[in-house]
């Protein structure tokens, strides 16, 4: 397994990094930046898919909540309806996860490649020889020049600038990904991710060769740029808090979903009750072809409300 990993993923990446360093007059720092940007750009289709999937997931949150309220006691039905909702919005349940899983080995390979190419210790240098192609350009370039800006890429940053940069850029990226959420448990999880993730990588940068820190920073910056174009600033610049919806607004929201027809069943109990008795004629006026179906649904809904009231009495 290790040999296959080396052959297919690590070795090509490592040799490309070294060739790139040669192309930049031996500057390994510039090579790290260039390779990181190239890899991130090459993975844009996957990244976009992941971002879109994440955004779509966030967008259907109200509908999911309504479903949970409605079918909270019937797990199987809830599962079926959730899947139906995903299907309607073209969301794969693993849509957010698999692009991440695909990118993970590439990130690890890049990380390993940089670490190997740095060859900070004699043992690392010996290990590096196992992974190099017989290209003259590669063997002549090794060992690589470790100096870049104020850094020795093989050593941690003595001035702690790089760990701070890593922490800040990763925090920005995390913050952009996070969407406003009113669910306290979700909010806490988001907060934990936003703090833990950057803190962890800042800590790693503090301990390990700064070449890896350069990779983390560049990767995060590229990620921020891509994310900005796809999702805007996301949770980084919070929008003003929306006031609680009025009865009229709730009704309007329900109307919009009911008019859509397909999502009519996802109303929560509160919404159903808020809508009850205040329906106007325009309710039925827009999509005439769906009227028989909606009439049946309305009848079913009215029946359910009546039976609930009866039970309460």
């Amino acid at each position: 397994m290790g040999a296959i990993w080396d052959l297919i993923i690590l070795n090509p990446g490592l040799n490309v990094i070294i060739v790139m360093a040669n192309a930049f007059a031996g500057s390994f720092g510039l090579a790290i930046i260039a390779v990181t940007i190239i890899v991130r750009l090459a993975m844009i289709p996957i990244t976009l898919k992941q971002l879109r999937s994440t955004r779509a997931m966030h967008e259907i949150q109200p509908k999911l909540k309504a479903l949970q309220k409605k079918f909270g006691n019937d797990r199987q039905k809830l599962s079926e309806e959730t899947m139906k909702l995903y299907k309607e919005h073209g969301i794969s349940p693993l849509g957010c996860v698999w692009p991440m899983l695909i990118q993970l080995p590439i990130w690890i390979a890049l990380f390993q490649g940089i670490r190997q190419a740095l060859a900070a210790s004699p043992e690392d240098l010996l290990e590096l020889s196992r992974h190099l192609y017989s290209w003259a350009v590669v063997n002549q370039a090794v060992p690589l020049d470790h100096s870049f800006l104020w850094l020795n890429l093989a050593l941690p940053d003595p001035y702690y600038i790089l760990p701070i940069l890593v922490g800040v850029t990763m925090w920005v990226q995390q913050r952009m990904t996070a969407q406003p959420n009113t669910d306290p448990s979700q909010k806490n999880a988001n907060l934990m991710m936003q703090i833990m993730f950057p803190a962890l990588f800042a800590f790693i940068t503090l301990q390990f060769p700064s070449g890896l820190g350069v990779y983390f920073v560049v990767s995060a910056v590229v990620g921020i740029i891509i994310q900005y174009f796809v999702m805007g600033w996301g949770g980084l610049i919070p929008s003003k808090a929306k006031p609680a919806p009025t009865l009229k607004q709730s009704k309007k929201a329900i109307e919009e979903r009911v008019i859509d027809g397909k999502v009519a069943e996802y109303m929560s109990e509160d919404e159903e009750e808020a809508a009850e008795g205040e329906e106007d004629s325009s309710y039925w006026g827009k999509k005439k072809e769906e009227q028989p179906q909606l009439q049946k649904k309305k009848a079913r809904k009215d029946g359910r409300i009546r039976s609930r009231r009866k039970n309460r009495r």
Partner: protein
Amino acid sequence: MNISGGLKIKLRLKPSFLGKIALILILLVTPLFTACCSGALGVGWAGTLVVDDTLYVATMQGELSAYDLTNARAPLWTLTLGNGAALYGPPVVSGDYIYIGTASGVVYKLKSDNTEAARTIDLGSPIVGGVAVGLDMVFVGTSEGIFYALDADDLSQEWRYPEVGKLSDRIWGTPTVDVTGADTAVVYFGAFDHKLYALDQDGEEVWTSPFEAGGAIASKPLVYNGVVYFGAFDRKFYALDQTDGSAAWTSPFAGGNWFWTEAIVYDNTDNDTADGTIFVGCLDHNVYALDPVTGAQKGKYTIDGPITAPPVIAVLPGENKSLGDTDDSDGVQTLDDDDVEMLIVASGASTGSVYALDPANLAGTPKWASPFTMNEQVQSPMSVHIKIDGDLVYQFLYVYGRGSTLTARWLTTGGDSGWDIKTSE
């Protein structure tokens, strides 16, 4: 999700669930990062040296130990160097003193019986190559790219090269001193700037300019019959005229990977002509036998791993005597009537296989029925102890592995002599 057998697993994916997945991934990745990055500072591989029936071992624990080889390998002393800094270069014995450099940048001078306080000098930069001693000077290069000549007596600086500033890259190779007269010597060393330098006893360059190879140089140069031999990371093995640094061969010998370790020469003739053979191990798993004059390949042998420890030549004297140790009569063996020459090569792979080959014909039948395995990488110099003391004959090979195992093997067979210790215990 329905798994055959009717087990139903309900899949409910929510953002909070994804958050948990991400957290779990982080928790998994953290130790992975730590595991793959640990050891970045290195632990060393300094190895063994036998001088006057004493075995000196520079250990993976940053200690220097001495054993009495004629007294059941009794431990004589152990000294921790500094705070146990990694040791890469093997110790060197000159007169009554031992010299060794550490990865913390300190050169030590110790009395070989450890009866005096060690004298030290801190050069301020990691020492990865070994030291060399000649003309009452200790020569050593540092990772900073400065080459020092120190007074062998008090370790004060005699001179440094370059006089001002430093080389553009590290010096990780061990220097070689060729003492050419009572007061004259030439010291050769390679650096990662691709250059091989030749300096005289005063630190002046001997050649018009240093020889520039196609890759970094980590190997210790070998001087034999007016020629300097060394290998480089460009996968080439070079021979230079000692006087002016010009190429001695039409073209350098090409290997299949880097030449990391020093070459050795075996010349069993008494004349002054270069009719010996150069043996050099390569990271391509081959040991090559080369003609010293032309560079032509005379033979090669492929082992199961990269060769990072220098090969060793052992000549077992041709006397029909019992072979044993003072404390181990079980190991009595019979010698051949004729001298037995063997080239010992170790593998840097995890098997740690050690081979005994016929130096006259590498492709011929190996001297041992099969290589013995250390089951840990062998990357440090091995040592032989051959001594005839009356009816007693000592013929042992000492090997130190990266797993801290120090072992003594019968040179005749490669068999276990019954002495294995762990320096980490």
